[in-house]
């Protein structure tokens, strides 16, 4: 029974990985928000499944709170923003799609390289799953670097946080319920502040394209 749960969790991990890859490929902000929601669904489901498999009610509760915060609240906030500012919410990348794909491939190869071999000993899963999770973290960091839009950068940070949560789950690190709640509380506050900043940026720069932020250089 437990191995079936684990198989399901691993499939969801793969889904989250595909969602992060997808975040690099989509150009529309609407789909960027949806892919983030999809990755968050996978994270919440993994939390619930692992909680059920190990009979840990705390983990199940965290999964549900994660679902509420990241799958309902965050996409709702960001969709409102997209709806309000429309096409002005830039989602373009610095690199072209082929170049982006080449970098993604490089990151996956790097994640599978011997550099991270010493960490395999701490993984509670097989090495290939571990490689997926390391690669997901690296790809999320690259998403932040490669995106020009402020909203896309916010989503990249949140996707990175999701990737780290999955990484932690698969290396078997657990935290007490209070600490998990602390981390989620931090992230929720972060989302609200980021949302407020997006509105502030739009009001002052007339765009959510970070390339428009050139006041400091001119200053």
């Amino acid at each position, binding site marked *: 029974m437990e191995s079936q749960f684990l198989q399901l969790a691993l499939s969801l991990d793969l889904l989250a990985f595909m969602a992060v890859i997808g975040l690099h490929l989509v150009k529309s902000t609407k789909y960027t928000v949806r892919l983030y929601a999809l990755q968050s669904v996978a994270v919440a489901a993994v939390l619930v499944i692992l909680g059920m498999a190990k009979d840990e009610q705390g983990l199940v509760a965290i999964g549900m709170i994660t679902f509420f915060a990241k799958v309902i609240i965050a996409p709702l906030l960001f969709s409102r923003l997209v709806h309000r500012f429309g096409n002005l919410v830039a989602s373009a990348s610095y690199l072209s799609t082929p170049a982006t794909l080449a970098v993604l491939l490089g990151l996956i190869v790097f994640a599978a390289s011997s*550099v*991270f*071999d*010493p*960490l395999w*000993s*701490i993984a509670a899963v097989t090495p290939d799953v571990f490689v997926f999770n390391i690669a997901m*973290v690296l790809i999320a*960091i690259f998403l*932040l670097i490669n995106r020009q839009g*402020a909203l896309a*950068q916010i989503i990249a*940070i949140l996707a*990175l*946080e999701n990737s*780290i949560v999955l*990484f*932690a789950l698969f*290396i*078997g*690190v*657990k*935290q*007490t319920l209070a*600490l998990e709640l*602390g*981390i989620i509380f*931090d992230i929720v*506050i*972060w989302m609200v*502040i*980021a949302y*407020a*900043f997006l509105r*502030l*940026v739009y009001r*002052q*720069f007339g765009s959510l394209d*970070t390339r428009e*932020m050139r*006041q*400091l250089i001119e*200053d």
Partner: protein
Amino acid sequence: MLLTLVFVPFLTALLAFLLPAKKTRFIEAGVIMAAGIELALAVRCISVIAAGNLVRGTASLAIDSLSSFLILLIALVGFFVSLYSVGYLRTEVGKGIIGPRRVRQFFILLELFLFAMYLAVATVNPIITWIAIEATTLATAFLISFYNKPTATEAAWKYLILNSLGLLIGLLGTLVFIAILGDRSGAAIWSEMVASAGTVSPAAIKIAFVFILIGYGTKVGLVPLHAWLPDAHSKAPSPISALLSGVLLNVALFAVLRWKEAADVALGSDQFTGGLLIFFGLLSVFLAAFIIFVQQNYKRLLAYSSIEHMGLIVIGFGLGGVGTIAGLLHMLYHALAKSMLFLLAGNIFLRYSSTKLKNVSGLIEALPLSGPLFFAGILMLSGLPPFAIFMTKSLILSAGIAFSPWLVGALLIVLSVMFFGLFRFVTKLAYGPVPEGIEQGEAHFLTQLPVILLFALLLVLSWYMPETLDTVLASIRETFLR
């Protein structure tokens, strides 16, 4: 005692939130009273620690020598900044720049910022430290963009994004460390992890430490992870810049040092962690020294000087031995001197309404107290004798000779370049004619008192180190020698 110390700022923020914005005087009184209580408790904590006793609040709150030292730094700078903020904001309200609502908002965020910093250093749990350091980012983002100008918003945006990225990498490192060292149940605490560090894979520890250094190093402002620092420190209101430069950078360094301690025990030597710290420290000192020459803004200049000094501090810790003591002392003197300089920069801004170097001259004439103190503060910061920073810089350099005499030679040249750069700009600011339309004289009394007290404290500490503090510093050194 510890619980009170940590939660007083939180309760003050709550009080300010509940009071109507027009009750500014009550809020100000609450903030000053809270700062006084925190300082008194911090002094009490360090005395208890120096006497060889433990200070414990709850299961998650307990402090040792290093934490008590950091708490003292936060309380000291926090006290002067709180006092100064009252005078600074009253002047801004008087000029019609901000209203009572913004004043209340400022104090709420300031108290939350202090609360997060106290929590970060007072907890025994590395995850709570991470949560608290992340919370400092959240509390300060709106303080940096306080003036609602596009430049301030841009600086705050950079700060939010880069620090969040850095801290997430720091979280990754923390989780890897916990997986390697601690029990994975979530009850991991610093001391237990150090104790269990002797039996693990060195290669895995190295990877984890690199994540930690990149992650928290971003918040420390180490080059090349520093891009946010000059913008955020120069665009924030001056009291906040004082806290950011004087304390927050040290709080982030605290997390690096905690993990360094565990990593050194696991690796059996401090060669790896020390080497990395020396490398990033040198990079920071070198970049900051040369970039100072092209700066057009005196607050940015101070911000780059913070990068240089944080570089020197991490070099000290990287070298170990005498370098550790020098690093700790440098932390203390830099925190006080830089806070004083940023508060003085606030006084300059209140008088000249500009942070651009080209718009400021004749400081000594225009600001009879702040002008000379700013001049003296810059000399102090540059490491001119007989001020204490001269001694700590010399100690770091002498500790470095055993590591590499050539490197010390190069560092000496760079520090001289830095001194020349700072001296050139401060003479330009201090002398020359006062621009037309600039009135002479200081602003509010409360913008003068804290800088006078800070200067006096720096002078006293340059020549006399209280026994309690001396004992605590020696104890921290022992920890890192273990």
